[in-house]
């Protein structure tokens, strides 16, 4: 074995350029595969992290305006949600929806504390379960609770960004009185604001908002968690069913999609998951093609190398080399090259991923309305790297095997002439 390796070492050293060319194909193939997969993972992780605050199993329903005449009613009629929609959703869609939460929205002119004020704050009247449904993250204090609702307390939960603005320098705004256009609310908690969704929102008890602004039975929005709807097709089915039931309740054309708005984060989520997995697949395909080009490079060079050495093989066979020993020598050469340079490519690829993680992974991108990280943990797990390396080594062995087997199929005398 050591002898064979020494044979191979002599051979590789003699053909330095060819060895390097083969090796480069392998190294670059593996390097690019790992870097591509790492970058892909980085993008996907960043995306997931940026969207991590969203409640992906929630849908929102708003009343709209009819666009089709129906059952004697003209188009252009407003559809106003009310208590009946809550009961209808709970009863008719049991199993497919979890919490059904009515919310109210009111936009008074301002909210202020001392000299600091915010124009047009969005007051959202909510139930306690809203926090779970919308995945609101609490930083300080508490969310709206049952007692707030029962006693119609004037409690408010403030977003972290508004909190910084309204209560600068204060260790804790909890217990402070917030003046919302003349009505004094007590701050009970601070939630982590997400610039893409709830940054300007102030959560107050549903009953409080309904009482202060005299909203009666009417509801601005229904927020529901959905369950057991795994695919887009099932989601379409749910949407159709919901329109049909709601249309019967409010007496509009069930095909009139503007009579009722359903904002479906869940469907967005399914699409996003699909997009992610497409991105993931695309990176894999690109990576594997790069790997393939490396393999083709090795195969090409082995093909030429074997052709060039026909005469040498003839000499070896004339003095007693068995065909298999020639084939084995070529294969081992190929394996040694691909293993050494493949390992180098793997290590370089991993190092590059680490560098990306170190340099780009910690950077954030300011896109005006928000800051976002665009690269998180751009690394590939070691098992994948090792697998890719093993694949290219096997491919290297095969790349040596086929031309060598062809070469030893000719008679030794023909090889000697060649």
């Amino acid at each position: 074995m050591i002898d064979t390796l020494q044979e191979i070492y002599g051979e590789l050293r003699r053909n330095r350029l060819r060895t390097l060319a083969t090796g480069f194909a392998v190294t670059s193939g593996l390097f690019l595969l790992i870097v591509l997969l790492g970058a892909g993972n980085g993008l996907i992780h960043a995306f997931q992290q940026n969207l991590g605050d969203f409640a992906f199993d929630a849908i929102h329903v708003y009343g709209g305006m009819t666009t089709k005449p129906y059952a004697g009613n003209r188009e252009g009629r407003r559809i106003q949600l009310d208590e009946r929609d809550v009961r209808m959703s709970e009863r008719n869609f049991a199993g497919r929806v979890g919490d059904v939460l009515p919310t109210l929205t009111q936009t008074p002119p301002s909210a202020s504390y001392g000299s600091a004020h915010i124009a047009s704050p969005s007051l959202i009247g909510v139930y306690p379960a809203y926090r779970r449904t919308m995945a609101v993250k609490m930083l300080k204090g508490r969310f709206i609770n049952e007692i707030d609702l029962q006693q119609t307390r004037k409690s408010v939960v403030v977003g972290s960004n508004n909190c910084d603005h309204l209560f600068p320098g204060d260790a804790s705004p909890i217990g402070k009185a917030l003046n919302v256009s003349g009505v004094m609310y007590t701050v009970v908690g601070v939630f982590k604001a997400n610039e893409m969704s709830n940054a300007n929102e102030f959560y107050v008890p549903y009953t409080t908002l309904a009482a202060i602004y005299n909203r009666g039975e009417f509801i601005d929005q229904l927020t529901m968690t959905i369950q057991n709807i795994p695919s887009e097709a099932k989601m379409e089915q749910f949407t159709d069913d919901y329109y049909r039931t709601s249309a019967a309740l409010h007496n509009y054309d069930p095909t009139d999609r503007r009579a009722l708005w359903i904002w479906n984060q869940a469907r967005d989520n399914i699409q996003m998951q699909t997009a992610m997995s497409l991105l993931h697949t695309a990176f894999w395909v690109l990576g594997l093609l790069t790997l393939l080009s490396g393999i083709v490079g090795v195969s090409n060079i082995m093909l030429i190398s074997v052709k060039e050495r026909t005469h040498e093989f003839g000499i070896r066979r004339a003095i007693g080399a068995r065909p298999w020993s020639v084939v084995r020598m070529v294969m081992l050469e190929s394996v040694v090259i691909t293993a050494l340079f493949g390992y180098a490519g793997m290590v370089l690829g991993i190092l590059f991923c680490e560098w990306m993680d170190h340099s780009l992974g910690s950077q954030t991108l300011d896109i005006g309305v928000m800051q976002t990280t665009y690269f998180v943990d751009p690394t590939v797990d070691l098992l994948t790297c090792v697998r890719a390396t093993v694949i290219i080594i096997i491919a290297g062995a095969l790349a040596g095997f086929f031309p060598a087997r062809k070469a030893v199929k000719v008679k030794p005398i023909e090889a000697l002439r060649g």
Partner: protein
Amino acid sequence: MTCVKEVIKDADMIRLTNIHKTYQGAQPLHVLKGIDLEIKEGEFVAIMGASGSGKSTLLNVLGILDDYDEGEYTLAGTLIKNLSETRAADYRNRMIGFIFQSFNLIPFKNAVENVALPLFYQGVGRRKRNALALEYLEKVGLKDWAHHYPGELSGGQRQRVAIARALITHPKIILADEPTGALDSKTTVEVLDLLKDLHRQGMTIVVVTHELDVGMQADRIIHIIDGQVVLGTTEGQECEQQA
């Protein structure tokens, strides 16, 4: 004129019976047309013939580098017929020492490594085969050139390296295909002297040549004309000396 050499032994080293060989192609070429030939152990035989006569094909058959279509070839009591390439490689390795016109040394191996290569294929360890190779290089007078590469040696030196390589496995026969074809007259003499030395030590040698000077060094000349052995051509240097 007949010449019967007293010293030759009875055993046939090589026996060919009715060997036929045809190269298939668009125009099939019948090259060997029923060769019958016996070569005794310890004989020094020259095979002569014009180019295209089939003498090289005959040598390839003798060297198990090529197969034949019909007849029987026995080498040292072993029937050489329809061998797998693996068996053929083993027989070549253990029974035959080749000397080629173009030397056929491996250019990226030095003299010792070239000489030692047949032993590599016998599984002999590196140290042992290199020591043996050095011994054989000494026998052909190239000990000082042991670590030179073929490109650094003269034609005569290269051929002597090739001879050392042919001898290292203690083969039954030495097959030489125009061994002096690429050499000048001075080195030709050197190489021929080396072959004659081997002959004196009892080695069976078959040389293919078209040079009469070379053929005359042998015990016996076998003329091949158009794929057949021409009878009554038992001649050679020693007969001449007796005459």
